[in-house]
Each structure stands twice: as structure tokens, then as C-alpha cells.
């Protein structure tokens, strides 16, 4: 019986090429998107589940609280793990990672000159026991047990030595210190939150043999014993911290709490400051999941609509089969098998497409598509279940309609498939609701992105280049600056702790001097040339001058020091801009800091945050970058001049210029990515929906051929005919548009909520989105009705 069903289905599909083509294409696109999203979600979901006993591994975090604001930090002191292993019976093992790359890059020399590396970490000897990554070579218990040992990932080893295995035992110079390669490991999997190119033994590090309770710069992980109660452990962790650290914390006035986070929740759970890898927002995972389901729904709806519309064509066949004794169930089986066959074909096609696009997808989304998962036994079982489910969902309604026809009427071609019209209509409304809704969302995201690109940040990021600066360069820095200025490749140069796009260092204003308030403030360590280099707007007081003392030259806490505040800081103090000049504040490290000037607020953090208080002070020893303002004109010419000077004066450091405006855009890459993804999926949704509309209009036009011909004979123009056909559909589309506007308003409200600085709400996203979808729909209808209109009425009328 099934063989027969399939055979008949196959011939039916073969015969009606337009119908089959539309359905196949629509379903394939929908399934490709669906599977891609599923694989993406699966990847995000699978984070840190590859270690054995992953559900017993926790990272130790701390929470800083101050004035109602709380900050989660993922780094803790280095003494924590040894103490916990010694004193808490629940702890089976623990390890520590020190990520050097957050502080500075390292210089690696394999005998062919220095190369700058940015993914270098220290880890203690337990690392490979807690995280049992595969070592290609080396004993997990020994590769990090001695000082000066270095484990490379496979691709790093190949980069330096050409061959992974043979690199073991060879030497590398790291910042001029010798290391021996003790092992080579597989590259860190893409779904591990730990990701480095180099792991050095922590014993090499100066803190490695002498654990300390300060600073809190280490990632600490514990593995609890089987059956241990994590909450009980968390309590003991608090006691330990109290015992060893409580006094210090109280003295500095910090309010912190230590807590544990399961390793599997690092990627998608609460985000902490300074993780090894930036995590994902679980809300995006949900949104993608919903989008995947919507796209599949649109694909299924296409099939349902076309198949029911097409039922009119097939009622003769149905009547005949009934006359021959077909039961309702048997007819049902036949039509469902047809939809399943189609789903099967689409799924196979989708897998091929997925295979072809997976490299592109990986580079755009940053997540590799693991297609092996699809062809694993579980994957295949799921796919089969998927095909059956989609096949039934798509075939159910049309089959019910078709198999429910009365045979005599069906044979006489008298059945009108009008009964289910409202179902079809609401399905069309749903499709276009989704399409327009997604498109509106795309434009909302885009307008916010445009706003962020064009908003006046309060400093000038154009023609601004950043070069890595290191403390060791401090002796020759004046020569470097002068040489560059003299060459004409820069108009101004300043050292700074960070690029102005994101200033990270947190300081505290203490009561003292002319201020009695205490509050958190961001500190920007720079040299005297910062104001002119990034073009800050000094609205009161004076710029720094060469007579101002450097922080590192201060000898006592009450020595005279100078700082420039931003408007927000002044406001926080309760002063006016003019009043602030000459006032004294207490920065903690210096109690006698004179406010020398005030700059207009500028965005020194992501636009997700409001501009907060900022203090700028002369502290070039903390600098990590050299900000260079290029003159107008072709930047590449100036860059090559810069490179020449750099190679002559700082030969040991590579020349790696970064344009600040590019780094700024980079900061919003996740927003750009979501904008891009919304755009892609709304495009896909519109495409599928329009294809469905095309099919539907085709059938309506076919059924109304006679009517159209009569109208033509009576003198109707093509425009008249199009409007007759379009009227019904446009009503549905308008309804969908109204619903989509509601969705759009909700979406823009909740998405923009995340940005402290938002673009003005505008009606343009709505107008453009609706305009695009309507014109595509009208074009589709017009094209289809033109074909009917161009038929010769003499022929179409005679056949009736």
C-alpha cells in the first residue's frame, strides 16, 4: 500500500512542476534555516560539557557591591585553590588559570624573531586533571608540573614548528625567557569557554610558587567530590574567605561575596566581568529558537495553502478513488505520504545546501556547524522524526479537506473548496505578519546601529590609530613621539591606558578635600597630550602642561597632583563646571588632587551604558596604547612612515596599528551580527511567503480565468484585472501589517531597553518594512494576473 502511495505521490509531484517547485524551494529554505539555527543553538548549549564530571566542576566568582550596584567578577585570588583543597573536604581537585593576555601580549621567539601573541595563559599542574582535554603528546600529570614548561595547541605547534609531535622538547623564548615544550594538546574545542594558544606552567610565574590573597587576578575552578552539596560548599567558601581575607576587605571598605558558578553555565548564564571568552546572551538563543520555528511554520503554511487551493484540481481523482472503494483513512494516507515525500526531498536538499554553506555560516556567525551531528544515529533518528512530523503537519489539513469530499460532487467537479477559506486566509495573515514583523525588527536594529555609528561621541575617532605600548618603552618614548611628529605622520600623540572607546579602570573618590561624597569613578591614565590627541572639548579650566607631575613621581599621598574631570563627575560632586576648577579631591592614592579642568562628557564606554563620572590624570606608566592622530589625507602613506620609524626605534616589538573607529565598530559586533541575522531571516521569510502568495494567486487566477476573460471582453484593462485579484489579498496583508506594527513596537521597546543611549523612535522602519512587503506582494500578484490576462478570451470562454 505504502509503495503505491509513494509511487502515486511521486508521479503527482512530477506532473505539477510549478506547485512542486514552489513547495520544494520554500520547504528547503525553511528547513535549511531551521537546521542551521538548531545546530547553532546546540553548539551554544553544549558549552563545557566535554569534560568528564563536568557537572561537578565550578568556577569561583566574586560579586562586588557598591551603592546598590553590583558587579560580578570571574577572577579571584591565587591562594584560594590551595587553601580550599587543604581545608574543605568536599573539594576533590581544583585548578587555576592566569590569563596573561588581558594584561599584555607576549613576544614569542622560536629563533626567527619576535612574534606577538595574544592568547597566552599560565595554569597549575592540576589543569589537565580537572579539564581533561586530549593531549597529543605528553603526560597530563607532568606537562605543567615544573617551571618553564609550555603546552602548545596543535595548530600553534604547527605554526611554529610545522609538526605537532616533533615540537615536543624544543625551546621557545617567551618575553626573552626560555621555555621547553612539554606537550601538545588538541586545539581547544569551539564550545569550551577556555581557549588559548599557549598554556605555561604556573610555577614559572613569579606568583606561581607563592600563593597570595591579593590581587584577584586568577580564574579558579574546583571539582567537588561526588555527591557533595554545592550549596554547602559555597557556605564553606564564604567562611574561608572570611577567615583569610575578611580583615583586608573590611579595611578597604569593599563589600564582596564569593560564589560558585557551574562550569556549564559560564557561557550562557550570568555574565561576569573579564571572562576568558565573551559569553552569549541566552535571550538571543531563545529569539533564534522562535525564529527557527517561525520559518518552519511559514514553509509548512505554504504547503498547506497551496495544497488546499489545489484540491479543486484534484477532486475528480478523489471522487474516483472513493467510487472504487477508498476509505477516508486510505485517501488520507495517500495525501500525507505526498507531503512526507516532499518533506523528505526538501530535507535531503537542505542537508546538501547546509553542507555547502557551512564554511560561510561559520565565518559569519563565529560558530562552526557540526554536520557530523546530523549524520549520527541520534541525528538521523531526529531527522526522520522531523520529516514525519513536518509531513503530517503539512499534509494534515489538505488531506482532511480532500478526503472529506463527497464523491458524486467531486466527480462532477462541483465541489468548491470554499469551506476552508478562513483557515487559508489566517495562514496567509500569519505568514505576512511574521515577514513584516521580522523586517521591522531588522530596521529597528539597523537604525540603532546607524545611530551608534554616527552619534557624536564627544571625541574624534577618525584618523586615530592605536599602537601597543609597553612599560618597557618608557625610556625612549619622548624620542619616539618627537621622531613621529617631526616626520609629519602625526599631528598629536598621547599614551593612554585604553582606547577612548572603552575605558575600563575603576577608581573611587573618597571624602576629603573639598568633597565629602564617596563614589565610584572611572579613571583614565594618560599623558599630557590626551586632550588634543583625541580632541576632547575642554569647557572650563586648563589642559595638562609639562609642569604637571606624573603619578609615578608622587612620593607622598598628600603631594599636589592634578586631574581633569568630566561633566558627570562634577555633577556627582554637586558642583557647577566653573566651581569645580581649583577644587581638591581625594583619589585614594592621592589626597590632594586639584581639579585643573573639565571636559564635556564623552562616551568612554559602550552605548549600552550611560556616561558616568570620569577622572583623567597623568599616569603614563599605566599606558597600554599609544594614540596617534594622523593628519588628513591618505592614512596608508602616514602608516608606512610610522612603520619605518617604529621598526627603527622599537625593533623588538611588532608594528600592529589598529584604527580606533574600526575597533569602535568591532565593539558592536554582536549587535551587528544580530542585525545581520535578523536581516537574513526576514529576507528568507519574505521570500518564502511571496512564493506561497505566487502559488495562491496562480490558483485563484486559474479559477477565475472565465471571469477575467469576460471582464476583458467587456473592456477591462490589465490594471482593473490586477486590482480585482489583488483586493482580496491586500486586505489580508493590511491586517497582517497592523499586527506586525504592534509586534514592532513591542520589539523596539524591549530590544532598545539594553541601550542607555537610544536612537529616536521613528516610523520609518515601519513604513519601509510594510512598503517593501506590499510592493513585493503586488508585484507577485500583478505578474501572475498578467499571465491570465494575456490569454485569448475566445479560447478560455469556449472551453467552458
Amino acid at each position: 500500500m505504502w509503495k503505491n502511495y509513494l509511487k502515486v505521490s511521486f508521479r503527482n509531484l512530477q506532473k505539477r512542476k510549478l506547485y512542486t517547485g514552489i513547495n520544494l524551494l520554500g520547504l528547503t529554505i525553511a528547513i535549511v534555516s531551521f537546521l542551521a539555527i538548531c545546530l547553532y543553538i546546540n553548539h551554544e548549549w553544549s558549552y563545557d560539557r566535554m569534560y568528564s564530571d563536568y557537572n561537578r566542576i565550578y568556577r569561583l566568582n566574586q560579586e562586588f557591591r557598591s551603592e546598590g550596584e553590583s558587579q560580578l567578577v570571574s577572577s579571584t585570588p591565587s591562594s584560594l585553590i590551595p587553601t580550599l583543597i587543604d581545608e574543605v573536604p568536599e573539594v576533590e581537585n581544583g585548578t587555576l588559570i592566569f590569563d596573561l593576555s588581558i594584561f599584555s601580549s607576549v613576544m614569542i621567539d622560536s629563533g626567527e624573531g619576535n612574534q606577538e601573541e595574544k592568547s597566552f595563559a599560565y595554569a597549575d599542574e592540576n589543569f589537565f586533571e580537572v579539564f581533561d582535554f586530549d593531549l597529543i603528546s605528553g603526560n597530563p600529570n607532568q606537562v605543567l608540573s615544573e617551571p618553564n614548561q609550555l603546552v602548545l595547541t596543535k595548530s600553534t605547534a604547527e605554526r611554529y614548528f610545522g609538526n605537532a609531535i616533533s615540537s615536543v622538547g624544543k625551546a621557545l623564548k617567551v618575553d626573552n625567557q626560555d621555555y621547553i615544550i612539554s606537550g601538545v594538546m588538541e586545539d581547544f574545542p569551539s564550545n569550551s569557554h577556555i581557549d588559548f594558544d599557549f598554556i605555561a606552567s604556573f610555577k614559572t610565574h613569579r606568583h606561581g610558587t607563592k600563593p597570595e590573597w591579593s590581587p584577584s587576578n586568577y580564574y579558579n575552578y574546583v571539582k567537588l567530590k561526588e555527591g557533595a552539596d554545592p550549596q554547602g560548599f559555597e557556605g564553606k567558601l564564604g567562611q574561608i574567605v572570611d577567615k583569610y581575607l575578611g580583615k583586608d576587605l573590611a579595611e578597604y571598605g569593599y563589600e564582596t561575596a564569593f560564589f560558585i558558578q557551574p562550569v556549564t553555565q559560564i557561557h550562557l548564564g550570568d555574565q561576569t566581568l573579564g571572562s576568558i571568552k565573551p559569553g552569549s546572551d541566552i535571550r538571543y538563543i531563545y529569539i533564534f529558537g522562535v525564529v527557527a520555528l517561525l520559518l518552519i511554520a511559514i514553509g509548512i503554511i505554504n504547503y498547506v495553502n497551496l495544497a488546499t487551493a489545489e484540491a479543486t484540481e484534484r477532486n475528480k481523482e478523489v471522487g474516483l478513488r472513493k467510487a472504487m472503494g477508498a476509505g477516508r483513512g486510505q485517501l488520507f494516507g495517500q495525501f500525507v505520504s505526498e507531503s512526507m515525500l516532499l518533506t523528505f526531498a526538501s530535507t535531503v536538499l537542505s542537508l546538501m545546501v547546509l553542507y555547502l554553506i557551512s564554511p560561510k555560516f561559520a565565518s559569519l556567525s563565529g560558530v562552526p556547524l557540526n554536520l557530523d551531528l546530523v549524520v549520527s544515529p541520534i541525528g538521523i533518528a531526529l531527522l526522520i522524526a522531523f520529516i514525519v512530523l513536518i509531513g503530517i503537519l503539512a499534509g494534515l489539513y489538505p488531506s482532511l479537506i480532500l478526503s472529506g469530499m463527497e464523491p458524486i460532487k467531486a466527480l462532477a467537479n462541483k465541489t468548491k473548496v470554499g469551506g476552508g477559506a478562513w483557515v487559508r486566509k489566517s495562514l496567509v495573515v500569519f505568514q505576512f505578519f511574521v515577514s513584516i514583523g521580522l523586517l521591522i525588527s531588522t530596521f529597528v536594529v539597523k537604525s540603532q546601529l546607524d545611530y551608534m555609528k554616527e552619534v557624536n561621541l564627544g571625541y574624534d575617532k577618525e584618523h586615530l590609530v592605536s599602537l601597543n605600548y609597553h612599560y618597557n618603552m618608557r625610556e625612549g618614548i619622548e624620542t619616539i613621539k618627537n621622531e613621529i611628529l617631526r616626520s609629519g605622520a602625526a599631528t598629536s600623540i598621547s599614551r593612554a591606558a585604553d582606547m577612548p572607546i572603552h575605558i575600563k579602570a575603576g577608581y573611587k573618590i573618597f571624602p576629603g578635600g573639598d568633597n565629602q561624597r564617596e563614589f565610584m569613578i572611572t579613571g583614565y591614565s594618560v599623558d599630557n597630550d590626551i586632550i588634543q590627541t583625541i580632541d576632547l572639548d575642554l569647557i572650563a579650566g586648563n589642559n595638562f602642561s609639562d609642569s604637571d607631575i606624573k603619578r609615578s613621581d608622587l612620593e607622598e599621598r598628600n603631594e599636589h597632583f592634578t586631574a581633569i574631570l568630566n561633566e558627570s563627575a562634577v555633577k556627582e560632586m554637586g558642583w557647577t563646571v566653573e566651581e569645580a576648577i581649583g577644587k581638591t579631591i581625594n583619589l585614594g592614592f592621592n589626597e590632594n588632587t586639584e581639579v585643573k579642568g573639565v571636559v564635556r562628557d564623552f562616551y568612554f564606554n559602550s552605548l549600552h551604558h550611560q556616561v558616568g563620572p570620569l577622572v583623567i590624570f597623568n599616569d603614563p606608566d599605566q599606558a597600554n596604547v599609544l594614540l596617534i592622530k594622523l593628519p588628513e589625507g591618505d592614512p596608508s602613506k602616514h602608516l608606512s612612515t610610522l612603520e619605518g620609524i617604529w621598526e627603527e626605534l622599537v625593533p623588538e616589538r611588532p608594528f600592529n596599528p589598529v584604527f580606533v573607529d574600526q575597533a569602535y565598530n568591532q565593539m558592536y559586533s554582536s549587535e551587528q551580527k544580530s542585525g545581520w541575522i535578523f536581516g537574513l531571516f526576514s529576507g528568507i521569510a519574505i521570500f518564502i511567503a511571496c512564493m506561497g502568495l505566487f502559488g495562491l494567486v496562480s490558483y485563484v487566477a486559474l479559477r477565475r480565468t472565465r471571469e477575467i476573460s469576460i471582464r476583458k471582453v467587456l473592456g477591462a484593462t490589465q490594471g482593473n484585472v490586477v486590482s480585482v485579484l489583488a483586493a482580496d489579498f491586500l486586505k489580508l496583508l493590511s491586517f497582517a501589517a497592523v499586527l506586525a506594527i504592534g509586534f514592532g513596537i513591542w520589539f523596539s521597546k524591549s530590544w532598545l531597553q539594553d541601550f542607555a543611549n537610544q536612537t529616536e523612535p521613528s516610523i520609518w522602519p515601519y513604513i519601509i518594512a510594510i512598503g517593501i512587503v506590499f510592493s513585493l506582494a503586488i508585484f507577485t500578484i500583478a505578474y501572475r494576473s498578467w499571465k491570465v490576462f494575456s490569454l485569448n478570451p475566445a479560447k478560455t470562454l469556449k472551453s467552458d
Partner: protein
Amino acid sequence: MIQLKEIDKFIESRFQRIFILKGINLTINEGEFVTLMGPSGAGKSTLLNILGLLDEDYAGEYWFGDNNITKMKDRERSSLHKSEFGYIFQAYHLIDELTVYENIETPLLYRKVSSNERKSIIANLLDRFNMVAKKDLFPAQLSGGQQQLVGIARAIAGKPRILLADEPTGNLHSGQAKEIMEVFQELHQEGTTIIQATHARENADYGTRLIQMLDGKIDQDEVITHV
């Protein structure tokens, strides 16, 4: 075998009932070859559809053997329909997407006949109608007469006791029509009860009984004697 009592069929229009059949009383015995004749609109096809359980929307009683069809459950009626009736249409109504072989096979599939049995039944039918060579052709590749032979083969594949034919030769020229009627005669001689509706008087001569219909009523009912 079949007994109709006071069968009425009408359409409610806004102002009046239009009767298609009115007060039909008819008994048909097993083994008869009945011909329904009459002008267009006399109600031949309607009566045939009611007899063949394709139309259930009428007033009156329909007895099949000892069973009152009008009081039967859907399931019983459907199984009766499957086991007892075969249909032949004026426009052949073969399924265009299926080959000759598959068209004949379809009713057997719906009757859940096993694969081997199907093969032998179809082989016999193809043989009987000289269509073995054409079994893999599609309907569009056959002449009208050949298509109707397939239609007959399909109708009798399930071994029904009653064969219903609505203008079986209406679309054929006389040579082909004669061939079809001879097949009917043969089937009749093998014991099948046949009821056909036709316009052509000469077709009635193959049968045993002629019923003339006019305006939804039975006008004349005569026995045809073969000389």
C-alpha cells in the same frame, strides 16, 4: 436482491421542490442485466448513483438482500460498497497518473488484497481483454475503447456481484461500443448482475430487462426476450 421502495430525490429551491426522482419502486433480482433508458434529465444517472451507494441523499427505503441500506451505519455501507459494486463511467475516469496495470490494481489495494493475489487477478484480466502488451501504458496513450476496457477490468477486478455502468459506450464509436457490450454480455453469462444507463436502444438488446424512464418516474418496465 435489490429492492427500492418509494424513492424520492429532490432539490429544494427557493420556491418549490424540484423532483429528480419521484416514487420509484423497483426490484432487481440477482443475475439480471437491466438497461435504464430515457431522455436526458429523466433521472437515469441519479438512480444509478443511488443504487451504487454513491448518493445517500434521498427519501425512501433501499433494501439490499435483507438489509435496509438507509438504516445502515457508514462503516457497514462502506464495506458493502467495496465488496458488492463495480462502476464503469461514460468518461472512463481512469487515473491519469497511473498505468493500465496500476489503474486495475487500485481497487484491489483498497480491498487489501495480497500482492501475489493481485498479480494473478490482474494478469488474468489483462489476458482476458488482450491488453498484456499495454499494461505499462498511461491512459492518454490508449484509444477510447481501450480505456473503457481498462475501466471494465478495473470495475470487475474486485469481483463485485453488481456492475453499474453509466453510458459506458457514450464516448465510443459503434465498433468499439459493440465490443464493450459483448464483454458485458459475457460477464452477465458468468452470473454478474449488470445495471446500465444508456441512450442507445441497441445496447438494451444485450440485456434481459428494459426500464424506460421519464421525468423521474419509471414509465415502462419490460422483459427482453432473445430470439
